[in-house]
């Protein structure tokens, strides 16, 4: 059986006044119905651009893409805008980071939900309205029947993200792409939204691609994880494998920067330095200027993705296996603290 979404060797670059920016550089992953893929990385690591490319939402005048995006076995990268439009919002839906600005301020939320139905289905407005109401109830908007005629500014951030989710699911999509859906929300609301997404995934049997910089979020909901750095995948594995046996120094850094309730009040680990400029990426491995284990080869050569251990686990690091295990064993104690 073919996966719902298969992305292979996806590359996207942008033309800017200062030169070409390789925002996505050879990314591959796939996700099946009912599964959740998490894409993790810092700002500027190319995770959002990856998803916008999948959706065909990049500015065509500035962006060029290559590689392959297959949806249900059919190639959609570079497809005609008409074809893409039929897929977008119908088979593949997307929700965004900031629910405060992602809804049109001058249209009622009912109108915006109905629009999502009407651009894909040939139904009457009253049917679309009924469907909109059904979804608002499904995402847990209290008094949905009266609130449906309210405007976005009359909703809180969490409620707006629920509306966005309702809007994304209104056509029963196969895939939901969520670009940092909880980043702009407070922690308790975050948890609610994540739980809601999981519940709806069970109901609607869709695949979820979750983009985030927050490993805590990923730990809660992802089945598979892709870690991105400077436009490249540096490690990918099943969630369990990645948390138990991470192989890349960058992943170690991300794990180390997670806050824990262990009673210790040490400062959180911080990956030193800044994410690199994609305009002038460092030579060799893009992570080498910030990596504590850098050696000659890292500066000279770009590491390939290599398989390790469990099937599907791949990483992009030159350290030899024995050395990596040794470092991780030591790190684990440090990171997992009292567990030792």
């Amino acid at each position, binding site marked *: 059986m073919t996966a719902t979404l298969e992305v292979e060797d996806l590359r996207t670059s942008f033309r800017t006044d200062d030169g070409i920016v390789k925002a996505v550089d050879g990314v591959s992953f796939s996700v099946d119905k009912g599964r959740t893929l998490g894409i993790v990385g810092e700002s500027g690591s190319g995770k959002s651009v990856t998803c916008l490319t999948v*959706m065909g*939402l990049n500015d065509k005048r500035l962006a060029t893409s290559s590689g392959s995006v297959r949806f249900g076995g059919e190639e959609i990268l570079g497809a005609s*805008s008409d074809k893409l*439009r*039929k*897929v*977008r*919002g*119908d088979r593949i*839906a*997307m929700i*965004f980071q*900031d629910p405060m*600005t*992602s*809804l*049109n*301020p*001058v*249209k*009622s939320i009912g109108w915006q939900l109905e*629009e*999502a139905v009407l*651009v*894909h289905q040939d139904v009457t407005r009253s049917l679309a309205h009924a469907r909109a109401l059904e979804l608002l109830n499904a995402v847990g908007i209290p008094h949905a029947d009266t609130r449906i005629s309210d*405007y976005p*500014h009359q909703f809180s951030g969490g409620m707006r993200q629920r509306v*966005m989710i309702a*809007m994304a699911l209104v056509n029963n999509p196969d895939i939901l792409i969520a670009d940092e859906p909880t980043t702009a929300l407070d922690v308790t609301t975050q948890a609610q939204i994540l739980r809601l997404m999981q519940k709806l995934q069970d109901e609607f049997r869709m695949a979820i691609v979750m983009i985030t910089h927050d490993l805590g979020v990923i730990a809660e909901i992802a089945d598979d994880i892709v870690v991105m750095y400077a436009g490249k995948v540096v490690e990918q594995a099943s969630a369990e494998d990645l948390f138990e046996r991470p192989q890349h120094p960058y992943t170690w850094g991300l794990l180390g920067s997670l806050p824990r309730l262990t009673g210790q009040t040490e400062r959180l680990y911080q990956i030193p330095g800044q994410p690199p400029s994609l305009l002038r990426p460092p030579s060799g491995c893009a992570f080498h200027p910030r990596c504590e284990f850098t050696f000659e080869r890292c500066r000279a050569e770009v590491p390939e993705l290599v398989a390790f251990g469990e099937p599907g686990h791949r990483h992009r690091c030159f350290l030899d296996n024995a050395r990596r295990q040794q470092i991780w064993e030591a790190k684990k104690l440090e990171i997992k603290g009292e567990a030792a």
Partner: protein
Amino acid sequence: MLQFLIRRLLWAVFLFLAATLITYVIFYVVPADPAKQMCGRACTQEDVARVAHHLGLDRPVYEQYGRYLWQLVGHQSLGTSYTTRQEVNHIIAQTAPVTASLVFGGAFFWLLLSIPVGILSALRARSIGDRAAMVFVLVGVSAHPVWIGLILSYFLGYRLHVTPIAGYCDFFNPSLGSDCGGPVQWAYHMILPWMTFMLLFAALYVRLIRANVMETMTEDYVRTARAKGASEHRVLSQHVLRNSMLPIVTILGMDIGLALGGAIFTESVFSLPGLGRQVLQSYSNFDLPVILGVVVFSTICIIIFNLVVDVLYAVLDPRIRLE
């Protein structure tokens, strides 16, 4: 809503008092003697004093102002002209429709030109068409209305005889003994003034609309609409336009209110007997009541148009509630 209106009204009263008072004081400070001018060369000192007394000019300025306000509020009278002895109400009623023809017609044409050009410019930013439009904007913004008016009048009116060179025809009543009058002649005579207004304001508005549309195109909700699978046409008509036109409504309201106070240059070039030309004439005669009348009238226009804009804004933008 009620509180909003009351606050607005109080503000309007203040604005009104400030505008008239300043006009009064400036007039008082200017070294001129309207009484002497009215009386004529042959008048003796006593005659001038009598006229001044008759007009109330021998009173202190605050008393004159008070009496003016009383006349205005109590009798809805703007007084009589010093020079022509005509009721100022009558003069305003005669000249305001001319200015209104110019301003509203002009606004119609400048929007007709600037909305499509502005939107196209934004959608095709940096294209040849966009650059051409920006050159037009630069010329339009830099040119003076008198220059634009004279050029149009010279080429289209004097050289090519497509339009009248200047002059005005009444919309309703053809004046006796001439065929000048009625809607067709009115519009025919207004073409050049409207074009002058159009070139002048369209330049500003093209730039404004272009900037607003471009900004709105980058909004998150526009991306959401695309992610929904809406067509580009739908994205533009349903999501971009309404949002990007909101600021235009405010500026249009202010511009129209302001222009109604007298488009002095355009009216002078085309000898349109409107408010602007009236003010110019009255000023050289030190005809205070007429000048004040126009000030009062335009203040009221500005206040009304600001109110209209506020109400319209609340209708267009659900985020704004009149509370």
